[in-house]
């Protein structure tokens, strides 16, 4: 019996103590009409050896390919020490630190994380995580509605150049609470959000403005101008940011004259593997004045009975287990293990290392763009400065090109033509510090072959 330790002797003794004839009797309160006869649709058990074989066979069907996709999830080198420590049972199999005295490891780690994340984002206070970047942005918008008391409209301005999935998730999660979203266009030449397009909202009641930096195209936005416009117009500024980029880019807390009000994003680039889509984690940080509106767990340092420092969950009156229907969010379980990984990652790479990861990724993407744009039928879409992603425009549909590249062992990028049809055949590419010059050459050669072997559309 996998993982069940009971012997026949144990079972007999326990039933005797309970006064039941068999384990079936323990279910006698359940009306017979509901009892299931058997789970025929579930396969028979496999031993660990057999399931290991099964998983290896399944995984072998998904052979590794050279990855050039970003689009919200980024392949970075993860120091070996990170997951060696994260996989320790004391971190892996612990739960939410409700008994603080028995959870000082997790709690101190989260306090250190909050310190790092607050500094990285340039804000006063960070929480201990949300689910991911997209749902985190939804929570940030809901928070802005609560925090911006002077605004009644619940209207949020979003860039068209915001990650399209983030927009979908925003609608799915925040749409229920009657938030309305207006879209601000991007400049077709530069790829950045058009600041002048904000002017049509001058004097209107806008609750918040979202800025993604870099935006979905990888282009760097005029964060100061947008932040100042928001504040001049009584709106809060929400920055959805890439955490690696914050090692070299001005963080949200320093945008404009007063700094953005809420910073959020996906922490996956910090020591979390791609793992086919998750689990990742959402980070959120804000100014002190808004802390009581911030969702998610927050850890605080306090004193124990002997006057010695220790860590505990705090400001719990915001949360569902205290406030129930009046909570800031329904979030309970969050993404603790991934935050653990990120904290260890940030400790090992340090400020210098993270800056070099960021700068090297930018350089590699530039090299990638240069190499690919030399292939006939391929050109760069936008001419403004970027972080570590770029949009290329092909002279033919992107899908078949990507399939052909995949069969050559290359995952060439993300097809954005369905999301941005006005761009044409758009391909979003990314190269991080994990892509070598040789990798880039391999891609450029393969793309050259693929583009030659089929005619243009």
């Amino acid at each position, binding site marked *: 019996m996998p993982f069940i330790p009971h012997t026949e002797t144990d079972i007999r*003794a326990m039933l005797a103590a309970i006064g039941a004839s068999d384990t079936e009797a323990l279910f006698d*309160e359940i009306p017979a009409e509901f009892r299931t006869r058997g789970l025929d649709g579930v396969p028979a058990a496999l031993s660990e050896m057999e399931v290991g074989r099964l998983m290896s066979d399944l995984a072998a069907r998904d052979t590794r390919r050279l990855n050039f996709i970003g689009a919200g999830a980024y392949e970075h080198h993860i120091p070996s020490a990170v997951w060696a420590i994260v996989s*320790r049972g004391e971190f892996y199999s612990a739960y939410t630190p409700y008994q603080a005295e028995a959870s000082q490891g997790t709690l101190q780690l989260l306090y250190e994380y909050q310190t790092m994340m607050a500094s990285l984002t340039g804000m006063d206070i960070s929480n201990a995580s949300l689910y991911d970047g997209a749902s985190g942005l939804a929570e940030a918008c809901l928070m802005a509605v609560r925090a911006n008391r002077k605004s009644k409209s619940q209207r949020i301005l979003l860039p068209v150049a915001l990650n399209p999935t983030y927009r979908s998730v925003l609608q799915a999660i925040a749409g229920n609470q009657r938030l309305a979203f207006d879209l601000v266009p991007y400049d077709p030449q530069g790829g950045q959000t058009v600041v002048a397009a904000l002017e049509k909202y001058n004097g209107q009641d806008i609750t918040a403005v979202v800025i993604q930096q870099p935006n979905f195209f990888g282009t760097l936005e005029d964060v100061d101008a947008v932040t100042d416009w928001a504040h001049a117009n009584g709106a809060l500024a929400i920055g959805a940011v890439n955490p690696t980029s914050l090692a070299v880019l001005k963080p949200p807390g320093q945008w404009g004259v007063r700094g953005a009000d809420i910073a959020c994003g996906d922490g996956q680039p910090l020591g979390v593997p791609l793992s086919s889509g998750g689990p990742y984690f959402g980070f959120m940080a804000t100014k002190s004045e808004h802390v009581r509106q911030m969702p998610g767990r927050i850890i605080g340092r306090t004193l124990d009975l002997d006057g010695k420092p220790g860590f505990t969950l705090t400001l719990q009156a915001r949360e569902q*287990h205290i406030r129930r229907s009046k909570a800031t969010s329904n979030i309970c379980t969050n993404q603790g293990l991934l935050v653990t990984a990120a904290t260890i990652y940030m400790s090992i790479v340090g400020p210098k290392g993270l800056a070099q990861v960021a700068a090297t990724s930018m350089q590699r993407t530039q090299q990638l763009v240069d190499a690919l744009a030399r292939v006939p039928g391929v050109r760069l879409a936008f001419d403004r400065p970027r972080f570590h992603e770029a949009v290329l425009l092909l002279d033919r549909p992107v899908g078949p090109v990507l399939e052909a590249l995949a069969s050559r062992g290359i995952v060439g990028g993300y097809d954005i033509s369905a999301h941005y049809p006005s761009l044409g055949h758009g391909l979003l590419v990314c190269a991080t510090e994990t892509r070598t010059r040789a990798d880039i050459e391999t891609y450029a050669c393969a793309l050259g072959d693929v583009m030659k072997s089929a005619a243009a559309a």
Partner: protein
Amino acid sequence: MLEKLIFEHSAPGRSADAQFPQAPVESPVPTELRRAAPPLLPEVSELQAVRHFTRLSQLNFSIDTHFYPLGSCTMKYNPKACNQYAMLPELLGRHPLAPESTGQGLLQCMYELQEMLMEVTGMRGVSLTPMAGAQGEFAGVAMIRAYHKSRNDLARNEIIVPDAAHGTNPATATMCGCTVREIPSLPNGDIDLGALQSVVGPQTAGIMLTNPSTLGVFERRIREVAQIVHGAGGLLYYDGANLNAILGKVRPGDMSFDVIHMNLHKTFSTPHGGGGPGSGAVGVSETLLPFMPVPLVGRQGNTYRWLDEKDLPLTIGRLSSFMGNIGVLLRAYVYMRMLGRAGMQRVSEFATLNANYLMIKLREAGFELAYPERRAGHEFIVTLRHEAREYGTNAMDFAKRLLDYGFHAPTTYFPLLVPECLLIEPTETEAKEDLDAFVAAMIAIRQEAQSEPEKLKGAPWTLPVRRLDDVRAAKHLDLKWKAA
């Protein structure tokens, strides 16, 4: 606090040089966007980082080190095989947006997981995307609203919730733009059907129920509850947090529930991770199939693909950047394959055996049960109101003293209905002698409560810190380290 903060180990200029690309690079960032001062991240050697975080881990209680009978959380053993096989390089290193042709192995796992979860819950469809129980609840209530809206039944805005419900239930209802109507439970733990009858009406969107309930007992008149709510035009939501009690014995779909969420990090043993990641997969009846959150996995012959908004035009939408917590889902898949058909049934059998045994032994030792006439499901409630009155030692004091005895305390002060309560869930992976040791500790602690109550009131004594001042933590906010 035994350990310095990582920042207190830092020295300017120290770094773990092996870890990042060496070539110094001129900053390619435009001046006006350049970060002025570097972020406050530790400057330590790799060994210092490893030593610091390893020592921090040693300050934690965990399932791997301690009996952890946290009621409603299902702290069962997390099999190492699940971790190992979920982290195979091909699965771990794959980008979520890579072509589907490059992910057929992964997609097959996800498809089969959907199928197995449908089978054990008796539901007609499953979506794996919600990233935790609370997000699963959100999806469930959002689907109920979407259903009523699709039938132009726009007045249905009220969600009924028992007063014993987990806090995420009413919080979720609010997040979905609904109002919450609480109904009382009877002294024997069942829902008050009369109260239910009096609150249903044309404004009823649905009811959120847990079965067995948060009181640890089976809602025996679930058939009547279903009739009353369905009869009034509402739908039934099942909070699957307590699925461990009935896995393989009863299926929520057979109890007339329209939508359920499962906590894969409870019932299906994915790691709790110090506060997540979880997974709150949702299952639906025929009625709600069109509204499921996307993406789902579909199959055509031997090929698998993601089903999205084009396939489910009435979907409530996407809840995550990609497809949910895939790594967690893989662990649940491996777990379910190792348990198999018979293993699933044994889960609830032995979880219930352990809970009932522990309950009887504590009752024999003189502890008061909240529902002494009822069978335990997979968990049960002890009330320490007598001890609080007689000795001045409350549930919190007992919990803190249990830590000294080497046990993580049960859940305290939930459900709110029962005063000075401990919600105790042993799970099926604990051996009889560990349950006996817990009973012995409880007896010893009560003896201390009687003769030396300060031992409880001052507990814990043997942990890295003494009892922490929560009031101070909220009054004097210290939420990050600052350099001197």
